[in-house]
């Protein structure tokens, strides 16, 4: 894992002191809320429905056991014993007191964590593949590149007041596990003629105008990665629509300007920047890489005893092939049937931290699907690990199944929400567990947002649900056919929305159409793409 150097630590510590002073001045009345709000937001502190909410950055989703333990302690000390893991691979706390926030941030800083740039119109936490450094199919570990970009984008003075928030994802395999093309910039590390470089996708996003990012450059040499990123940002910073919040994201600029013209301007700026020599020396990248070297993998058992059927099912669904044949990556589901997607209690966090220390070289990862990964688990340890998880209610075998729902906080917590998302996800997972259909559906990604901002990725759901306000009553639109993966597509609305009970029925009806129509080996998404919307509409509204 990356370790802070003295600069990193100094910056984070200084930020805690600065924020402590700002909070004191706010509480003493020397700052008005209008003056204070941008300051607290720069430190990830929002005001939500019930209290202040703090969003903590987890760079590319990677956490050490010690960091996970502190996240658990924070939940107990400053919150109500739990936290919410989010689609941006971060964690949010829902009940923070303003007067406690500086102490909380000092606790975070002690384990090299912070909440900087988790809000505001800046470059946000950089996300990546949750199996990075472990995946059998990756070209290289994408995290050193994500870390380089994190360092470049942290406190970058030119990009602190962009037209709008800015999100970057970095992957290094053809399978996209990070929704890369739904980011403002998606970067894929690729190989060309034996040399590593980066393909750039720019202008993706969700929100009210979802877009899939077009590829604007096939190959940027690694010693020009930061320079090219800077050029992409500069053109956006210059022309992005500051006049209209709803048109301010880079996706709108790329769309309105046209990908070709945008690319032309980026290339022009890039040529200019190359002359300026802003790229950090490659030695810096090499230095960063040393933090992400493989742990000391050992050869061991390669086969798994699957005689226990519950264990076998979990292995089949929740473990993923590792680049070392004596290891797998194991996914801890935070989606028990009827539970709140992404919520974990402090006890669960402590347990996950202990298990990471014992079985995964002290490392865990937050997935954008709101689950936790232990990236490097010895096959020989799997059964012991599963037993511990199972006993703690963390052994749900449902990765990418209908019960593995992404849900944003919705109207239960979020001040921008139109409708609740969590209860819908709870009812759907309960329905499909009770009727037994859940186990027959295979991969089915269901994603729910409580408003058009799309924090729950509903545009990218095989089945998506969007909460809307219909004359003061919660109403839900159903969408079909989205994907955040390498076959990215945007889901389409089926038709008129449903009320709370109706949307759960509608999802079941949709699943039934799939079960009736599917051909051998087809996932829900494949069937939808083959047969189109009509049979689903017929069944839903017929």
């Amino acid at each position, binding site marked *: 894992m990356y370790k802070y150097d003295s600069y990193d630590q100094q910056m984070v510590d200084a930020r805690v002191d600065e924020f402590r002073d700002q909070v004191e001045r706010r509480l003493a*009345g020397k700052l008005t809320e209008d003056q204070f709000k941008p300051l607290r937001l720069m430190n990830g502190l929002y005001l939500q429905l019930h209290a202040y909410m703090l969003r903590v950055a987890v760079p590319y989703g990677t956490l050490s056991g010690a960091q996970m333990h502190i996240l658990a302690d924070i939940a107990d000390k400053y919150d109500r014993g739990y936290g919410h893991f989010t689609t941006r691979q971060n964690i949010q706390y829902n*009940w923070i007191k303003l007067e406690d926030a500086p102490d909380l941030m000092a606790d975070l800083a002690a384990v090299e964590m912070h909440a900087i740039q988790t809000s505001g119109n800046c470059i946000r936490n950089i996300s990546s593949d949750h199996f990075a450094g472990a995946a059998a199919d990756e070209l290289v570990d994408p995290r050193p590149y994500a870390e380089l970009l994190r360092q470049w984008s942290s406190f970058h003075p030119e990009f602190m007041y962009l037209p709008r928030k800015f999100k970057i994802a970095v992957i290094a395999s053809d399978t996209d596990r990070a929704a890369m093309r739904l980011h403002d910039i998606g970067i894929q590390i690729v190989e060309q003629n034996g040399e590593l470089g980066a393909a750039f996708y720019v202008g993706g996003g969700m929100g009210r105008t979802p877009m899939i990012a077009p590829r604007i450059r096939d190959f940027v040499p690694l010693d020009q990665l930061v320079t090219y990123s800077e050029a992409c940002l500069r053109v956006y910073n210059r022309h992005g629509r500051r006049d209209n919040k709803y048109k301010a994201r880079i996706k709108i600029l790329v769309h309105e300007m046209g990908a070709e013209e945008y690319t032309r301007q980026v290339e022009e700026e890039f040529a200019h920047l190359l002359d300026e020599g802003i790229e950090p020396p490659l030695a810096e990248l090499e230095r960063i890489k040393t933090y992400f070297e493989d742990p000391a993998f050992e050869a061991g058992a390669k086969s798994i005893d699957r005689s226990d059927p519950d264990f076998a099912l979990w292995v089949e669904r929740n473990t993923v092939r590792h680049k070392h044949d004596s290891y797998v990556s194991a996914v801890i589901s935070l989606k028990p049937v009827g539970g709140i997607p992404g919520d974990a209690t402090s006890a669960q966090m402590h347990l996950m931290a202990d298990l990471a220390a014992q079985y995964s070289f002290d490392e865990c990862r937050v997935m954008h699907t709101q689950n936790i990964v232990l990236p490097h688990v010895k096959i020989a340890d799997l059964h012991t690990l599963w037993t511990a998880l199972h006993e703690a209610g963390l052994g749900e075998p449902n990765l990418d199944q209908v019960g593995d729902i992404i849900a944003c906080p919705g109207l239960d917590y979020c*001040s921008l929400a139109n409708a609740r998302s969590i209860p819908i996800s709870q009812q759907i997972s309960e329905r499909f567990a009770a009727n037994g259909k859940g186990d027959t559906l295979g991969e089915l990604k269901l994603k729910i947002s409580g408003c058009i901002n799309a924090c729950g990725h509903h545009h990218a759901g095989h089945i998506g649900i969007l909460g809307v306000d219909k004359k003061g009553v919660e109403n839900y639109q159903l969408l079909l056919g989205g994907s955040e993966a390498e076959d990215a597509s945007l889901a389409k609305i089926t038709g008129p929305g449903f009320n709370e009970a109706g949307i759960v029925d509608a999802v079941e009806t949709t699943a039934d159409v799939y079960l009736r129509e599917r051909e051998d080996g087809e996932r829900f998404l494949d069937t939808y793409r083959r047969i189109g919307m009509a049979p689903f509409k017929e069944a839903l509204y017929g």
Partner: protein
Amino acid sequence: MKILTGNDLKTGDVVWWDGRGWSRHVEDAVDAGEEAETILAREEAARRVNVPYVVAAEMADGIPRPAHIKDRVRALGPTVRPDLTLKPADPQAIDWVI
């Protein structure tokens, strides 16, 4: 009726204007009528409340019920965590919200 709400500056707790000060319980909320804006300005300036606003509400069973579901969620707490609401022992409380 017009009731007033906001968050406590220090703790972030949801609070309601009870005629003399700020209460955590919507049951205590009073009709601020024509005074609403004046009270908000005075209380916010004195830092007795943060980002306050006026909420349309009506009396139902003797309790002010905010017109918008968002303020009813604020008044009770998250519907998915009854244990963390202001009425953890009352399973019916959520019906009031929805």
